[in-house]
């Protein structure tokens, strides 16, 4: 492993950035969750966001998909300024993201198929296309045999594979994964990362927030962004 460390410096040109953060600050009352963070992310990059608990990893992802608004600074996604996005355009922005969470966020009363199909339903796709696409993605993640199962009947690893299937089914440009392996055993974690890697090879930009950098380092080439107490303290390339 060769870590080429640079501090507070962007390795890539900002010209074609898919995601750009300019001096982003997020406050919760007096607490600074993000402090003056600036980052440029190129299309097709694999980004790790690491750091100890409470460093601001999840907050960084949350401000990207506008679950939270920034207190200061600006974020551009493909040149689109998030501060200027109206409430009616927000769903269109979110359809460009695929999201994976540590707690899976699957709807317990809906089957595996229905959970994954939801992404295409909200996009207004035809039922015949939805059926075909969802079954294809479930086959890819090895969950096609459990298409009619309800999430609470599945193991943690299986639920996360469904969550990954849901994240990729809409062919998003960007995948945001918040501690995707945090509640999984090693084998399940490796499997989930494999799926994310496979999707990355198709050209998607992937941002993974995790405190388990060792696992990621063993598998993936990409750029590591290290946060501490809301500040970006270093970026490094993992080869």
């Amino acid at each position, binding site marked *: 492993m060769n870590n080429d460390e640079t501090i507070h410096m962007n390795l890539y040109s900002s010209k074609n950035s898919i995601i750009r953060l300019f001096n982003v600050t997020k406050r919760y009352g007096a607490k600074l969750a993000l402090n003056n963070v600036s980052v440029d992310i190129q299309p097709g990059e694999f980004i790790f966001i690491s750091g100890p608990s409470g460093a601001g990893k999840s907050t960084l992802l949350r401000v990207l*998909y506008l*679950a939270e608004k920034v207190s200061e600074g600006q974020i551009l996604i493909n040149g689109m300024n998030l501060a200027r996005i109206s*409430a009616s355009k927000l769903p269109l922005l*979110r359809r460009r993201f695929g999201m994976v969470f540590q707690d899976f*966020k*699957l*709807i317990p009363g809906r089957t595996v198929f229905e959970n994954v199909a939801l992404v295409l*339903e909200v*996009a207004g796709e035809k039922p015949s296309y939805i059926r075909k696409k969802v079954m294809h993605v479930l086959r890819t993640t090895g969950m096609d045999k459990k298409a009619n199962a309800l999430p609470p009947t599945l193991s943690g690893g299986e639920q996360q594979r469904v969550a990954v299937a*849901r994240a990729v089914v809409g062919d998003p440009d960007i995948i945001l994964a918040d501690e995707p392996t945090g509640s999984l055993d090693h084998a399940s974690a490796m499997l989930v990362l494999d799926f994310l890697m496979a999707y990355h090879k198709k050209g998607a930009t992937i941002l993974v927030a995790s405190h388990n950098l060792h696992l990621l380092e063993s598998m993936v080439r990409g750029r590591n962004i290290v946060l501490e107490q809301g500040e970006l303290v270093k970026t490094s390339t993992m080869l």
Partner: protein
Amino acid sequence: MTRYITKALADIRSNRFLNLITIVTISLSILVVSLFLLFFENANRLIEGWNQGGRAMIYLEPAFSQEMLPDLKARIQGLGEVEEMRFIPKSRALEKLKDEMGSHTGFFDTLQHNPLPHALEIRMKTRGDYAQVAAFAKKITALEMVESVEYGQGWLAKFLQIFTLFRITGYAMCGLFLLIALFITANTVRLAFYSRRLEIEIMRLVGATEGFIKTPFYVEGLLQGFFGGILGLLILMAAFLTISSGISGNLGAYVYLDIRFLSIKAMGLIILASTFLGWFGCYLSLRQMLQ
């Protein structure tokens, strides 16, 4: 739209008890409202029937002679409000009375002269408004040669007073019950919304529009209102058929009662109003929660 209806039906199935309570509450409210409407529709028809569709009898003074008739008719016509007018000479009135009394007419032979007055039977343009009818009758009474005007003022005034009181109470009760139904519907939507918090959060995360999230709730509200309305009318119809056959059986021989169930138009309006109620309850609830 099919997708939304399917989703709404699935949600109703998954929250059967809550939805059943809402539908029953709406149906009971609609039942009360429909009951009043049924009463008003029939009472209006009965009043019009008992008032002979705006008919009145003008009884003339004993000094009246038939030569005065054209002048009197012209003066009455001059007051307006008269649709039809027919003179009934006292001789014909007596014959009619004899006919109506059938075999009990022996004492008429003992009469020295015809005690009945000449009369004019009129049909007024104003039929429903008792105050207008009374005012018009007062104008006729003031005319020369007119002794009195009979338009059912005794019993009709009393009945109309009770009817007006009942109408006001009816409006108040209808308003109250509709408010209760609205509150229950809004509350059901609120509970359904809370029970699906996670689902709604996930929908938002994957890019669902507010319309996509809200539409199944609206469809659910519309269905609750629609089925509540139908159920309310069915209960009322069953009660009506049972009670009206009893009334016809017991009173039919003595009094002519033309009691009918609600008209198709009224039933359509009730179902429409009930469906709107379901939608409006949902709208109020969602507007408050999504703010």
